[in-house]
């Protein structure tokens, strides 16, 4: 334990003082990531070889290649990605001001909170009939279901971020003459960024995880739809291609968020 701690100290020191060495820990991280992924794939291979009814990585790769070549994978990915991106973006965009309202004004909290709490425990699967009744079978209900998932994850975080804010910073802004709107935009939002980003990251996961449910609603294409379809024939390789694609897309989007976080919270002293 001590050795590790010391290593951390040294690393911090090195990072701070010699920027050209800054890349080395990142490369080390990448190596660790790759090692971890390799171990995972090996484990999967072993499991599938050991008689568990799983398709082997090779089978999945072949199926993935087929789907890629005939264009299905690309069009599915495009369809799903569009839905997730729109739903997620809307969800967070709405969640941030709503979370702020809840954290800042007692009346807003009193009015909104019961409904936020209530609806976020409702499974997306159960929302489908309602979404269909209200929004038909186009893109809207699908995006709506994803929107809800992202919204609820993010609104709680933002709210908590606002509630946990350091009061002295708000006071500092107030004595500089700043009014509520300015305090929200210029103090509360930046100070809550770590919380908001937790919300966005969790919300992003939720958005992807909801995709399958969303694409139950008369989707013409999409990864969730493809997986569901494959389930009709128990086509496990296709299901795995879907899962892995979703996983990778989720991972990439998460990296983008992490990068944004790094840019946005560089001001923090952090490990």
């Amino acid at each position, binding site marked *: 334990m001590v050795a590790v701690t010391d290593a951390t100290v040294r690393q911090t020191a090195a990072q701070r003082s010699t920027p050209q060495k800054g890349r080395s820990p990142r490369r080390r991280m990448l190596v660790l990531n790759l090692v971890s992924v390799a171990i995972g794939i090996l484990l999967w291979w072993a499991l599938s070889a050991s008689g568990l009814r799983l398709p082997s990585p090779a089978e999945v790769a072949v199926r993935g290649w087929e789907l890629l070549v005939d264009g299905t994978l690309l069009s599915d990915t495009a369809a799903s990605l569009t839905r997730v991106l729109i739903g997620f973006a809307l969800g967070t965009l709405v969640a941030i001001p709503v979370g702020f309202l809840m954290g800042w004004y007692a009346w807003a909290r009193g009015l909104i909170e019961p409904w936020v709490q209530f609806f976020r425990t409702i499974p997306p699967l159960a929302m489908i009939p309602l979404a269909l009744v209200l929004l038909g079978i186009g893109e809207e209900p699908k995006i709506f279901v994803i929107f809800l998932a992202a919204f609820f994850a993010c609104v709680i975080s933002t709210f908590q971020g606002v509630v946990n804010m350091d009061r*002295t910073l708000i006071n*500092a802004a107030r004595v500089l003459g700043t009014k509520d709107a300015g305090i929200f935009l210029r103090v509360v939002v930046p*100070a809550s960024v770590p919380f908001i980003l937790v919300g966005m990251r969790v919300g992003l996961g939720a958005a992807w995880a909801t995709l399958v449910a969303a694409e139950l609603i008369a989707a013409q294409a999409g990864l969730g739809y493809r997986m569901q379809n494959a389930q009709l024939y128990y086509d496990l390789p296709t299901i795995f291609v879907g899962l892995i694609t979703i996983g990778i897309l989720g991972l990439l989007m998460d990296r983008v968020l992490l990068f944004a976080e790094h840019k946005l919270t560089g001001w923090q002293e952090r490990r």
Partner: protein
Amino acid sequence: MTATTQLADARISVRHVRKTFDLKGEEFVALGDVSLDVADNEFVTVVGPSGCGKSTLMNILAGLDMPSSGEALVDGDAVTGPGPERGVIFQQYALFPWLTVRKNVEFGLKTAGLNAKDRREKAEHFIDMVGLGQFADALPKMLSGGMKQRCAIARAYAVNPSILLMDEPFGALDALTRVKLQEQLLDTWSRDKRTVVFITHDVDEAVYLANRVVVMAARPGRIFEIVDVDLPYPRTEEMRLSPEFAALRNRVWNAVYHQNP
């Protein structure tokens, strides 16, 4: 013992202010019946033992906290919140950690509606004034304690408030920087006709700067004595060595020293 002065043309007046806190279920009296008037363009320094309620009093004047009873008036109106005419320097600096020194100093200017160019010019001026020119683009986490404090000073100065409420503003500064900033403060104060309430632990500083030194006592927090400083402005380094100054300093010292037996 409570010392009260009532001025007709007071910019700030504190009337029988009492402030209690809930300390683990018991009522803790942070301020018990404090009354004080500060005239326009007056420079008042406040000294007193740690925990006697100096910061509490300042928070009330700033409009960030409300008295449990009594009231604080600024320009005759009861204080219900912060106002742009009152600039505050907090004991804990309270810089925005996500903004550079420059952006911190520009913060209030932006609220005031200045355009980017004016903001930048003005910020530049005050950043140079506190000697942070080289660090204008540094984030607070990259600053030393004293540098943070100077950044907070520049931020408060930049909005040009007619009342300055300063809570140990020079506490983390070395002697040289401190003297420089004292001179600058006296300079602007006399030129721009400011009203200043200045909390400090340095008795020398308190006497050197003030028209009046308010000596507070603890348990309950109250005004113990008010020492008028009859030295003329501008104050000089020679004055610091004068016997009048020594006498005043001793008076304040004794007031602080001997209140707690």
